[in-house]
């Protein structure tokens, strides 16, 4: 009787063999999806190493990490709201506002150290506004954060009229300084990765994921859905501020509209990082790797001496490619499963 089950087409037999192999090694769908961004990163690093062998030196790697840092920070915030099934466009405004405040404060004669500390400590406030509007006024995240993006962006322009100004050189240490012989950005990225491993295993982290996975079920199992959602938007805004501070330390100058470019880029990083954009599944380390992938793509571009318009095109293609791989993996694992 079994023979008739084998009568399926060759295509389905090959597929069956693939599935059995997957089953034998007990590889989970989640594991494979997690690995995708790492594989992409490895591929890009290898191609760059072939083009420019010196790119494997620690100095080079540290520089690329450094370049990717502002976007990485914004994207981590974006990831956290994405996990709840939401989105945050206002990170762009918050980023610009941070850049504007840090720059303008120097002109007002304020010391850079305390200013940066205060800005970081209050970084969650814009997110609180977003969260409250979304949760209690029940407006869609897209509309709320679109509106607050305009507002925060507008505030940035009132603080700093135009790009320029200068920031106290000591802030530059944040990106160029060294602790124990290792570049500051390497310390920061290590800290972020540890945070990522830790955060999504805490109760709040799990609650954030559970809201995006199934809001109703999360509510029924006792998750304070509203509070947790507000927390997620606060974190998104905090990370955007951290991104803004890091950016300021790199360029030591301000730009009140600089954040706008980071909004859609942060979604791209989240997607390349393997996160499910409808929420519930994803991880911070994936997003960290996603940001590095985009930086490496940029470096490969430079190494190939391609015109700048190619950067955009290649970024778009990479995004499509990585998302296509992810859905192919989901498809492979989903087939044959009970509905």
């Amino acid at each position, binding site marked *: 009787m*079994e023979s008739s*089950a084998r009568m399926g087409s060759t295509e389905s037999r090959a597929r069956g063999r693939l599935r059995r192999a997957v089953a034998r090694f007990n590889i989970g769908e989640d594991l494979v999806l997690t690995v995708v961004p790492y594989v992409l990163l490895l591929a890009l690093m290898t191609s760059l190493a072939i083009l420019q062998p010196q790119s494997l030196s620690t100095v080079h790697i540290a520089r690329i990490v450094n370049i990717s840092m502002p976007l990485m920070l914004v994207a981590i915030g974006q990831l956290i709201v994405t996990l709840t099934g939401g989105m945050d466009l206002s990170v762009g405004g918050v980023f610009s506002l941070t850049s504007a405040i840090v720059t303008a404060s120097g002109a007002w004669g304020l010391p850079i150290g305390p200013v940066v500390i205060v800005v970081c400590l209050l970084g969650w406030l814009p997110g609180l506004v977003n969260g409250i509007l979304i949760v209690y006024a029940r407006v869609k995240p897209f509309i709320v954060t679109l509106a607050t993006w305009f507002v925060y962006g507008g505030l940035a322009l009132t603080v700093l009229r135009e790009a320029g100004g200068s920031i106290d050189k000591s802030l530059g240490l944040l990106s160029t300084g060294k602790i124990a012989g290792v570049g500051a950005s390497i310390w920061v990225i290590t800290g972020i990765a540890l945070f990522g491993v830790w955060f999504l295993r*805490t109760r709040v982290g799990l609650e954030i994921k559970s809201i995006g*996975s199934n809001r109703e079920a999360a509510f029924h*199992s006792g998750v304070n859905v509203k509070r947790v959602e507000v927390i997620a938007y606060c974190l998104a805004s905090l990370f955007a501020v951290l991104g803004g501070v890091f950016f300021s330390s790199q360029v030591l100058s301000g730009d009140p509209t600089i954040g706008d470019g980071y909004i859609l880029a942060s979604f791209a990083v989240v997607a390349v990082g393997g996160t499910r954009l409808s929420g519930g599944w994803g991880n911070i380390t994936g997003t960290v790797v996603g940001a590095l992938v985009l930086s490496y793509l940029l470096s490969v571009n430079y190494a190939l001496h391609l015109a700048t318009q190619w950067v955009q095109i290649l970024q778009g293609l990479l995004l499509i490619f990585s998302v296509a791989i992810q859905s192919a993996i989901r498809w492979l694992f989903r087939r044959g499963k009970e509905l």
Partner: protein
Amino acid sequence: MMVSTGMEGLSCSGVTKSFPGVVALDSFDFEAKAGEIHAILGENGAGKSTFIKVLSGVVIPESGRIELLGRPIRFRSPMEAQVAGVGVAFQELSLVPDLTVAQNIWLHTARPSALGMLGRQQLGNLTVRLFADFDAPRIDPDRNIRDLPLAERQVVEILKCVARRGRVVVFDEATASLPEAETRWALSLARRLAKEGKLVLYITHRLYECRQVADRATIMRRGKAVMTGALKEMGDEQIVEAMLGRKAQRVYPPATHKPSSTVVLSVRNLSAGTRLKDASFDLREGEILGVGGLQGQGQSELLLGLFGAMPASGEIRVDGNVVRIRSPKDALRERIGLALIPEDRRNQGLLLTKSVSENVVLPVLRRIVRWGLLSPTKEVKLVQDVVARVNVGLSGIDQPVSTLSGGNQQKIVIAKLLLVQTKILLFHDLTRGIDVGTKSEIFQLARELSAKGHSIVLYSSENQELVNMCDRILVLSRGLVAAVLEGDERTEQSILHAAFATQNSKGDADGE
């Protein structure tokens, strides 16, 4: 009949909750003592689930008084109810699909480590111990809920609610999707909790299960308690009468005709998904063909595969012609006319906020167009026709679907499919968790449709339904047709016998 005070249990008086258009709880009174298993019975819409939602903090009542162990309570969120020791195993599961079994169970129950983490190792150990403590069927604590079959999810849901070791445990239709062995486990778990001095509320549509497990019962109708007492002193008739408020009609309408010998659908060597290996059978005109067996033997795959909702291989003939069905759209084509009615009433493709009429004509808009515009007269005629055929009581065809009962929504789905001119209907475990009244209406409709020449494939997890409704019954086992039962062979015993006989001969299917 009332028990003393609520001191040692739960007591409610005058609890009222209304939703737009319905009073779900109408000054509801209830008493139950700790240490007993108290069944709550009633039709769908009687207010059982609203009562459970009040107890679990999901819904806040407008008025009334609830006392738990002598103290008045008023929960404003599920969190508060859990802290007060009320645990509910929900029918509509409260599990998060993307978290693991362990994370779901312990999210709010386990104490985080010094670093604030709920670590994999820690939760895993807790879970293994919990499963051992309650003799539960083993499930890997690290698997995601979304990867588990329904029955295992239900087991997790039950364990999650007892993990907290609260004082009140509610089984809300918790056994509706459990196979035999797991149901026995759940029942003994309920008994054990009661013995430990907990109050167990048991909600089910299966009266025989209540009798096995519960001491007393409260029967609800239209948001009120209409009868309370020891289950032993209530007859089945009496209970059903109290539930319906009238004499019960027969649940299973008798067959009115013999199916013809014309074969409308002939299936050879169908395989689908990972479970259905090789199924062959014929379906005759006007026949109701049952599909049964133990859970997860390929029944779902058989229906979904036929409908094109799941990739399948094999030969399918409709009216003698070989057809290829690669998607539901193919299946619904006039030439094939094969439709599936899914079990999930909420996701079955009804636009809940739209009217009955809009829902029904959606797939056949082309037929009611005149000069490029929708013709209202054609629409009304078409809809009234088909609505009459499925026997739905409506105030008008403009009534929004959301105001209909679950059973009537089910009928609207069928009406919609009839308009597409389907000849073959696949019923996918439609009656799971549905009350007796609605169930009998759906079966009545199935009888009428088959009398008019429609052929029906009816998959049900309840053998009783198969025995009473089907002309023939296919018993699936390990993805194969293990037996075809006809005439006098159609008994619950022979279904079980056929299902188990082939289960034991292990090896042949794993031999690959």
